[in-house]
């Protein structure tokens, strides 16, 4: 009896030692074999020994032996569960933990706004044209009916490279380039970078973006210009936006117009409005019927064809649309500014 009891104590201690070192399911299985293996398991052998005991001894030894067996079985069952991790992982431990997010880069707000504009015109059957940023005086001014040494040039303060080349001050030279190589009907928009000799301040920079529109065909009228621009502005700013056309002057259009839209910030109600200065209107684009001299310069007969054109500052319009107070935000490229726009 004492021998068996000693053995039981010895194996209990051994099991406790070994079980604490078990790190994976395989080791737990080995441990099971070692103690409960059908032929040579330590416990199996102890039960063999137990059979040879007298009835009195059997009573106490049987209880102790069965206790040890269930202890070992329970402990192994626990381990088994523990190592069944794959099964457990199917359950969400704490669904309130934050999700795993994926960062998408953001388009630059100018790109974004330009695309919105392009999409509206493309839906009206326009195609998109581009042209060089380094231009000649002829394309930038002369062909667009700006006489040499005329004060009209003052509003287009120019950065020159040399006596022949300059940085285009507007996207209008592309009108000329397109009309030179293509005959009407023409129905295009021209987005792009333009440059002016402007000292940087909250609303002016020496580089900004414009989009130009040009339609040339037989029978094009001022009414068509109005209708198209009204649709465009409403598509961009919403159906309720009010706009007005008023006469203006551009050397390359006649008649010329400027288009104001209702101030989306104050709707004319705030006399101190930072955006519209209290006038209730915001100047947004210049437009007009193509000047007959411009047509002559590209060998299009103004008696047969007419057309309209417009030009819009993308930066300034985006500033207005998104209520961005300073134009330079666009070119500082602060990620905290830029990254807001992939939410749009």
């Amino acid at each position: 009896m004492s021998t068996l009891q000693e053995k039981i104590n010895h194996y209990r201690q051994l099991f406790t030692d070994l079980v604490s070192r078990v790190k994976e399911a395989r080791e737990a299985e080995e441990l099971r074999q070692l103690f409960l293996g059908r032929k040579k398991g330590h416990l199996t052998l102890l039960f063999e020994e137990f059979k040879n005991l007298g009835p009195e001894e059997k009573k106490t030894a049987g209880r102790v032996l069965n206790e040890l067996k269930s202890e070992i079985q329970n402990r192994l069952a626990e381990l088994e569960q523990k190592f069944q991790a794959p099964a457990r992982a199917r359950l969400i431990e704490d669904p309130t933990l934050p999700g795993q997010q994926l960062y998408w880069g953001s388009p630059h707000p100018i790109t974004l706004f330009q695309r919105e504009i392009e999409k509206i015109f493309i839906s009206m059957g326009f195609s998109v044209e581009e042209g060089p940023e380094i231009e000649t005086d002829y394309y930038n001014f002369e062909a667009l009916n700006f006489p040499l040494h005329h004060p009209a040039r003052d509003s287009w303060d120019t950065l020159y490279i040399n006596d022949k080349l300059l940085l285009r001050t507007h996207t209008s030279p592309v009108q000329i380039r397109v009309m030179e190589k293509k005959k009407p009907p023409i129905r295009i928009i021209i987005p792009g970078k333009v440059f002016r000799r402007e000292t940087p301040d909250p609303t002016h920079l020496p580089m900004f973006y414009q989009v130009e529109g040009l339609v040339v065909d037989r029978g094009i009228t001022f009414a068509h210009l109005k209708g198209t621009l009204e649709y465009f502005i409403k598509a961009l700013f919403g159906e309720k936006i009010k706009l007005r056309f008023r006469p203006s002057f551009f050397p390359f259009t006649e008649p010329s117009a400027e288009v104001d839209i209702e101030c989306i910030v104050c709707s004319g109600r705030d006399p101190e409005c930072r955006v519209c200065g209290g006038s209730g209107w915001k100047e947004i684009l210049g437009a007009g019927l193509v000047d007959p001299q411009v047509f002559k310069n590209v060998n299009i007969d103004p008696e047969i064809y007419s057309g309209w054109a417009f030009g819009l500052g993308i930066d300034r319009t985006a500033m207005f649309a998104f209520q961005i107070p300073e134009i330079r935000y666009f070119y500082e490229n602060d990620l905290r500014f830029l990254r807001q726009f992939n939410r749009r």
Partner: protein
Amino acid sequence: MKISYAWLKEYVNLNLSPEELASSLNQIGLMVESLSQLEEDTVYEIETYANRPDTLGHLGVAREVATLLGLSLKSRNWPLRELAKPTSELVDINILDPQLCPRYCGLVVTGVKVGPSPDWLRKRLEAVGLRPINNVVDVSNYVCFSLGQPIHTFDFKKLRGSRIKIRKARKGETIRTLEGTQVELTPEMLVIADETTPVAIAGVIGGEESGITDSTTEVFIESANFNPVSIRLTAKKLGLSTDASYRFERGADPNAAPLAAIMAASLLCEFGARASRGLLDVYPAPRKPRAVTLRLRRINELLGVEVEPDFVVKTLSGLGLKLKEQSPGLWTAEIPSYRVDLEREADLVEEVARFYGYDRIPSAVTPVKSFELPADREKDRVWRLKEVLFHHGFDEVINFSFTDPEKEQLWQTGCQSIRLQNPISTKLSALRTSLLPGLVDNAVWNFNREAEGVHIFEVGNIYFWEQEEVHREKLSLGILTTGLRSGRTWKEPEKETDFFVLKGAVEDVLNYLGYEPVSFEPATHPFFEPEQALKILVKNEPVGVLGLLSAALARNYDLERPVFCAEIDLGELLRKQPRPFAFQPVPRYPGTSRDLSFLVDENVSYQQLQQQLQKLNLPYLEKYQVYDRFRGKSVPPGKISYSVRFYFRQAGRTLQTEEVDRAMQEITAQLKASLKIQLR
């Protein structure tokens, strides 16, 4: 230009409120930028245009308003108290250059008492923001802002001799102007001179010596017309813009010259002076009025609205045009000399439209008669490229095309940079020859503002001289990645960016756009650390570079973290034909994969492995991928351990194990023979 309501009333009986006047002015394009209420007046800041010098005086604006309201202009009398002495006995006007001075009028006023102007005159000037000085100067300003015709007054006694010469300046001549600055004159500048020296720079500014002072008693009034271009060039050259030059360079009305002189003399007479008898008026080649044909049909064709002929006649007559009807709906219009902008039929159509009201012209849809297929999908491809980069977590930036030439030198882009003739500042005086300096600036800016990682790209032009006199602008793509890629979360530790983040983005851009084959070659480039850069080739032609920013450049920007960047010549790339998209059938039979783990000498590059595998003809090999690469304790020194998984597939059937085994044997044999790999 400031316009006073009270001043306008000198010319037209306005019967509308100041606010109503503002909206009338807006309707006809004299845009009111602001309106301010004075005690007895309302002042409008109106926008004027370079082609409308007639609106630079109250008379011109009154004419517009009167036409809109259907009112007529008041006629005003300018009586003179005349001396017995004819002007011609006092002065002799010699125009030596009638090209530059088509008309010159003048007369002398004596008995002038220089002193403060009467109240009404002071108020007028103050209303439009002019400072009253003395009655003589105030009168000339009043005339200028009434008629838009600048005049000049000389102290007659200070003029030497009786002859006034309008001539070009002589070399070396100088004049001290009314502003008190000494000005060097050049021979293309027109001056007003007495017998000996210039006394005024024609149409720009007078000389101090002959200017009006408190002791002036005799005044010579000049009212002339000058060539706009000559005035503009002179004013520009001198860096001066005066009320006079501003008007003359836009084209003053030669026919306003006599009236302006009389008006000034009349006002001085009212203040007690007397005028010499008869205005001297030298106008050697009087300008003939322009005639323009106008068709009613054309008005309607261009505006898209039927305008009544009566409206056309009423409007244009109101503006001072003399209309002669040739046949119904066809007129010849004689253009008044103050309207330099009206030259063609389209100009008259605009006048009709302005007064008809742009808001009354209907809105119509621009008709489409044909659709055109987009000629060029280049723009779509650029957008696609951007989308791939957004997906890779790169933000788009836009930088100025200008750059600092010093910085340009630092980067050694190898391009001859284009300089501006009249830059805003030296820091903005060259055009960029690479996008990367801008991107590095952006990284610095953002690191200085709490950013821990910067992953950005830009698509834009770079500019350079290709040869002397031959400039190029080229579309370029710049990409930069530095710092943390993502912060630490409960699931994952933070991730630092590296070269392969950049390379993967570049590969994906080229791959998704269908440019192939893409290959890389080791490159040496001034932007990058030695042996840390690759040339990017598409169809075996170089299209760009990528690498680790050189330590020297990084130091220059105080950048501590490694910066990886790439620049791709998009002009070159987009010219190449991308692989056309073709649908591939989805495999119906299962493929199989085998792993190969081996040791190879550390000098062997992955590209060499690729090249060896390419030499094999393995029809079933679909692709292969490195899934492990390491060196360390378990790897002998000088070796690298690779694990590569090979994927095999045959379209029409399931592959046999023996076929795959054979392929693997071939692969192993090839790598053993060429690169001496040892299987693990």
